């Protein structure tokens, strides 16, 4: 295996690295930093998507450290697309200082995501997690003029480091038990062993680390402050890209690595030994996320708690297990990620216009910008799970897979809980829409809007419309994404 081969197989990552360095250089050198850097970053991401499409269909390097497979390539493209939309939404006339550095760090985080998605080996997964995590911590703290950004970054960093420590410790136990770090090999080794307490500790610790990443309760406490305090593009990327990649990796670890591990007794007739842990996490996330979201008056915090709830729904697919479960999980988290980027995009524009993102800042949005109101309603209703949007199909698929999985409908309780969580969530999504459509613009909002003018850039509008159309399209014709995922599993 030559160095050239490695370069060819890692070409997407290399393209993004070069783009990141170029953006960094241009940002320092040029005065019109934000325009050129955004353009270069976006171009680089598009080229990287092209590079992914030109990869061979299957290849493995270094015992699973870099695996090219249809699934990995698909999710590299999805992560790159999410980064692309984030870069577009970060573009603004009066953006943060050091816009070039900001974009470079987004790109570095993207590389971390691609490494995560592209590996099936525990050490590389950890490296990907760390690269992503460190970039995201910096992105969260990037707005030096806002004390909440610093708070968000610090909380995210402290939480994240602890969680990473847990993950690493858990991984080391797994390594100790199995003697290898490649996921497939780990799975084989664990199949031959009976479950031991040490292995159980290792599994739980690894799951704890990942539960932090996906903001599953009770490891979600960082989410509200980070989603609210970080600069909006950072929050968008954390909510979307990081989640998608984490679910891909979690799925692989749990289904490939831990798959053969059976529990001592079938608890509520569930599938594998680790499934009860995930089921409890899912149930807690759904309940806590939805109930606390009811009390929120700030849209970003509301989205954070709803993210917790959606992590719960998505975990349902992993609890169900099997190819169907994994495919349902991946479909739902992808759809969710695009929806969240769109929702945060709307929040960014409203924030720019009215200097705030509480519910009252959204009042009367329909009269100031019907396009934004329409896009936001598509995003909120998709999150609530209403047809004909993607969230509806995603939930249907997820719940039917979960229902089918348990023997004697053992997961019925979880499906019912998730459905009633959805019902509760409809209330707070409708409140956001009520404020947008029925309330009149507050005085503060109209006066600020008057001074800034309708300063909503055309690019942002196009981006949001594209995202809204994607969500609608995936709801009407889910086969587009579903067959891709199913074929690649």
């Amino acid at each position: 295996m030559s160095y050239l081969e490695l370069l060819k197989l890692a070409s997407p990552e290399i393209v993004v690295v070069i783009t990141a360095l170029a953006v960094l250089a241009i940002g320092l050198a040029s005065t019109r930093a934000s325009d050129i850097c955004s353009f270069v970053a976006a171009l680089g991401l598009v080229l990287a998507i092209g590079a992914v499409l030109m990869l061979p269909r299957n290849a493995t390097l270094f015992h699973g450290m870099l695996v090219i497979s249809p699934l990995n390539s698909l999710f590299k493209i999805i992560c790159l697309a999410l980064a692309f939309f984030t870069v577009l939404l970060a573009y603004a006339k009066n953006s943060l200082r050091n816009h070039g550095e900001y974009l470079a760090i987004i790109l570095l985080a993207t590389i971390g995501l691609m490494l995560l998605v592209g590996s099936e080996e525990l050490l590389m997964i950890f490296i990907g997690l760390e690269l992503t995590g460190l970039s995201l911590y910096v992105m969260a703290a990037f707005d030096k003029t806002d004390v909440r950004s610093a708070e968000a970054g610090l909380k995210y960093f402290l939480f994240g480091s602890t969680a990473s420590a847990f993950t690493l410790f858990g991984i080391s136990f797994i390594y100790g038990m199995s003697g290898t770090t490649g996921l497939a090999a780990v799975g084989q080794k664990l199949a031959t062993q009976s479950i031991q307490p040490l292995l159980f500790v290792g599994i739980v610790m690894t799951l704890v680390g990942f539960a932090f990443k996906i903001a599953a309760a009770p490891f979600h406490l960082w989410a509200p402050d980070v989603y609210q305090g970080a600069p909006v593009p950072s929050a968008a990327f954390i909510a979307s890209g990081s989640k998608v990649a984490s679910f891909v990796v979690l799925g692989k670890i749990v289904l490939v690595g831990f798959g053969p591990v059976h529990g001592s007794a079938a608890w509520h007739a569930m599938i594998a030994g680790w499934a009860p842990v995930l089921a409890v996490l899912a149930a807690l996330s759904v309940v806590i996320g939805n109930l606390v979201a009811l009390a929120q008056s700030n849209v970003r915090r509301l989205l954070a708690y709803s993210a917790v709830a959606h992590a719960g729904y998505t975990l349902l697919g992993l609890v169900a297990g099997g190819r169907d479960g994994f495919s349902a999980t991946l479909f739902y988290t992808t759809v969710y990620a695009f929806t969240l980027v769109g929702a945060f995009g709307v929040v960014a524009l409203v924030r720019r216009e009215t200097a705030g993102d509480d519910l009252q800042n959204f009042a009367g949005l329909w009269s100031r910008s019907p396009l934004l109101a329409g896009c936001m309603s598509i995003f909120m209703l998709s999150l609530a799970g209403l047809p004909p949007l993607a969230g509806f199909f995603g939930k249907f698929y997820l719940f039917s897979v979960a229902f089918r999985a348990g023997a004697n409908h053992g997961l019925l309780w979880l499906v019912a809980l998730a459905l009633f969580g959805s019902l509760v969530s409809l209330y707070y999504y409708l409140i956001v829409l009520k404020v947008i459509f029925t309330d009149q613009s507050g005085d503060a909002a109209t006066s600020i809007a008057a001074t800034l003018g309708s300063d909503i850039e055309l690019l942002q509008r196009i981006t949001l419309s594209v995202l809204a159309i994607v969500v609608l399209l995936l709801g009407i014709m889910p086969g587009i994404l579903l067959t891709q995922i199913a074929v690649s599993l």
Partner: protein
Amino acid sequence: MIAWTIYVTFAGAVVLLFLPGGLSRWIALITTIASFALSLSAFFQMSIVDLAHFNTIVRVPWVPMLGMNYHLAVDGISLTMVLVTGLVAIASVLFSWDVDHRPNEFFFWLLLVVGGSYGVFLSADLFLLFLFYELVIVPKYFLIAIWGSTNKEYGAMKLTLYSFFGGALVFIGIIAAYVTAGSLDLNQLAEFQFPPQLQSWAFPVLFIGFAVLAGIWPLHTWAPTGHVAAPTAGSMLLAGIVMKLGSYAGLRVAMNLFPQGFQMWRNWIAVLAVIGIVYAAAVALRQRDLKFVVGYSSVSHMGFVLLGLATANALGVSGAVLQMFSHGVIGALLFAVAGRMVYRRTHTRDLDALSGMGLSQALPFAAFSFVIASAASMGIPGFSGFAAEITILIGAWKTYPVAVWITGAGMVLVAAFTLRAVKQSFFGERSALGGSTASPGDAKSYSASPTFVTSSAERSIHPPHPPDLAPITLVEKCGACLLMFATLAVGLYPKLLLDRIMPAVEAMRFLKSGS
């Protein structure tokens, strides 16, 4: 052909969103008339034999991996429901002719409700039916929250959450059926033998989920609040069509897929239905707000539908379908008069206030429509309500004779509250003050206190000048005449519809497998 009702409606909805406000109502009118014309043409073209079973119109693979197909089909029952949807849709557009606050969005949401309803009635794929069923929920919220009146935000949220709650229960039932049978095609599912154990819990969950939207007691409280809060067109659509979505889906999905479960639970359904009829009628008797009276009457009439469904014989179920048509038209007409004709002009719905206004002289056409609608609602022969209710009662007599006795008593209550509403709203004694004559105590008394008006003899010789109210417009007259014609036509010649409904009902599996 009939599938085009769905496409035309949705296309119209999207198109009018981008047009100037004044045009939107015309586009809405053209769209609804076109869809109704399509369904009428299907009505006359399709032979009665064809309509006896569920004919596939369109079947296109949608998500082959999950067995989802875009599958539309029609039979006599579906066709009846599509007809009533068309009628009520045209009438509601006509009665919203003067909406000037954001008309584009108003007609957009209105057409979404109509299109979604067409979709539910024509779906033959379980997922597609559920998709259209849930699609209708959000437009209702916006229609009420933006253009509604009394307590609109509370009413809208309550209605939406109740509907979604019903939808959640339906979701569980649908997933249970899908996972057990491995198919989403309604025809295949109807043939599938579900294990009785599954049916015993899946049927009540599924049926109650659908029945929430049909206004089953005690999960009916969203209906009066929501209907009162809604704008006129909203109430017409809600009472006329959306409540029927629940009962139709209960018939098409719950009863047809889980016949043994239905047999296990139908006594309970009959009990709840009868309670609903009597309870809602009794509550309507005490209402001071005209629209609340009409709202509770809707719940009472839907109780008839549920009773008919619970009888599990061809006659009762056919009567239920006919009642769905009949009440769709009658309920729409009642809400149209109460909302658009009366409330918009007098700005009050309080029966005491209305009784002092002498509306029978000020708005003679409105009085005429309301009398016709009330007669139909009471079940007077010659109108569709009689045909439907007598069919249901004959069917119920075979299985639940006690229910028929109790319902008979309930019908007396229905007559009582209807007559009270008619008398107080239109035919009250006009007072010389021309305003509200709030009499203390019993709401049934209408006579003004004798100390400050002239004697009744003088009043009859020199009737006070009727209040200056805008006359009923031509558009409103068209809408009302359309609905009155429909109820009269079906009332005088119910065979028109029953010939198409009964064979379709008899073909349904739950009747064939012995009841």
